[in-house]
């Protein structure tokens, strides 16, 4: 592994012909004896913004962690940018959902992002000039330069989200995996995170997998939707995937899709499925973290 932290690896190392960002071929992932993903196949192309949707426990996080090579695949194969999925792949940027209790730290935003630069290497956490530039670059990309000097204790939920995104950009990834970045953010901050991600995807010409409970905040930003349910997956445009028949198959129960203006609601009987999920997850989330 060369010094991915320091150099812009842009065009030089990328092959001339297009390489798919992510290929799942008949992938089965078992967790605690249950097939969270069962024989899932799909292909995410270059420079695509894909929203990963689905109810709780449908395998959104599992799909991302399998892509990162953090979970064993019991069947099938996963290829990331043309190469088999392995742990520690420097071409993938990752913003995990499980976060340590960083809220209570007085560490500065700059130091928080800096720990990622060559973070897997042994030695003292000293950064070279190039490494420090890389941190500044990542902070600039997410518009968080003003957070550099501020302690984490004094950042809001939306600001912390931007720092986590900056961490994900360290190493100049070609594929960005974001696990539920909208959780516990209010609608205006949700919009800001989606717009920022879209801007990064366009400017850096990278692919994004963005998992979310709710489809509506992502409308307008995403190219395609990867909808998960009951171990299965459906990838396509919003019009192809967010339909009664497709979602009924994924949920295993009758689903109705209601459009009101530009907004789309996924209904099971009388309930708005996404909203239910979101509220549920929100409460669950609050147990672990102080309110933002």
């Amino acid at each position, binding site marked *: 592994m060369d010094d991915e932290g320091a150099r812009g690896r842009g065009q030089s190392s990328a092959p001339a012909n297009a390489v798919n960002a992510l290929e799942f071929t008949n992938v089965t992932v078992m967790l605690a004896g249950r097939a969270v993903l069962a024989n899932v196949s799909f292909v995410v192309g270059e420079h695509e913004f894909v929203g990963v949707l689905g109810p709780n426990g449908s395998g959104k996080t599992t799909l991302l962690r399998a892509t990162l090579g953090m979970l064993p695949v019991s069947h099938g194969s996963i290829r990331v940018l043309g190469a088999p999925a392995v742990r520690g792949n420097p071409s993938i940027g990752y913003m995990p959902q499980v976060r*340590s*209790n960083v809220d209570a730290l007085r560490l500065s935003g700059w130091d928080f992002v800096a*720990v990622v630069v060559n973070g897997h290497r*042994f030695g003292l956490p000293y950064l070279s000039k190039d490494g420090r530039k890389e941190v500044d670059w990542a902070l600039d990309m997410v518009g968080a330069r003003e957070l550099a000097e501020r302690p984490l204790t004094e950042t809001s939920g939306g600001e912390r989200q931007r720092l986590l995104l900056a961490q994900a950009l360290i190493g100049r990834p070609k594929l960005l995996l974001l696990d539920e970045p909208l959780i516990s953010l209010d609608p205006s901050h949700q919009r800001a995170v989606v717009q920022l991600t879209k801007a990064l995807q366009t400017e850096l010409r990278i692919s994004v997998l963005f998992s979310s409970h709710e489809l509506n905040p992502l409308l307008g930003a995403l190219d395609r939707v990867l909808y998960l349910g009951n171990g299965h997956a459906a990838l396509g445009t919003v019009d192809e995937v967010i339909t009664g028949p497709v979602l009924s198959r994924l949920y295993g129960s009758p689903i109705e899709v209601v459009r009101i203006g530009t907004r789309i609601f996924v209904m099971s009987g009388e309930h708005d499925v996404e909203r239910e999920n979101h509220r549920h997850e929100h409460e669950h989330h609050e147990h672990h973290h102080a309110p933002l």
Partner: protein
Amino acid sequence: MLHYDFMRTAFAAATIVAIVAGPIGYFLVLRGQTFAGHALAHVGFTGATGAILIGFSPLAGLVCLTVAAGIAMGFLGERLAQRDVAIGIILALALGLGLLFLHFFTSFATKATALLFGNVLGVDITTVWTLLVLGAVSLAALAIISRPLLFASLQPELAAAKGVPGRLLSVMFLAIVALATAECAQIVGVLLVFALMVGPAATAQRLTKSFAGGVTVAVALALGYVWLGLTLAFYTDWPTSFWLSALSAAGYFLAVLPWAHWLGQRVPIGIATSKSAVPEGLAPTDSQPVS
């Protein structure tokens, strides 16, 4: 004061231990494993008393058992290391066993007090050399793993994705903590390891915004506490461990009190200007720290 051999030895021992306790304590606080560190010290009490009983040096017993316990704790990982109840019960058992071993030993009282509360003025020159070697080993080991350890402490899931071996680091770190604990116990005893390892590091994290700054302040505070503590002990004839625990507590509470936090902040302009509207007789006479 430094004319006395025992004072020079005490200063040397305390200086070594303070330099070791600062950086290791910083990571211990950062990782939220302070209680685990406290428990390791108590396991050390069992090791020391057991060693005395079978005729070995208490320091050897202390080091061996704490390191073994640290490694075991690291392997058990989150199932044990973050469980307060399990740690607390092991801690009580360790002290109980230590008491039993001392029960079989004749010079019960003096040994017990020295082990539990420390006796830095009784440290001999051989122990200083041992402390120096152990300290160098633990700091060198920490230096080697510090970068991935910092990453894994702040962002465990992302670090795991980047290929950082979290479990291995956890085991190595707790072994290092165990060594440092054994060192600290020579100065402040097994019961007061918190005062030297956690106090300065926790205070430093309240006062600093960077990793390098935090470690530096932690070491500086630990050095300040042991030097001042020894000096105060010399002139008052009160126990050194008392002074160390008092200084450590004072430093921490000064740093966490609400007004300490306020001192570190810039004064909001709104408040600064509204002061001028206060009638002259009521205006505070002290100067405003406007920056």
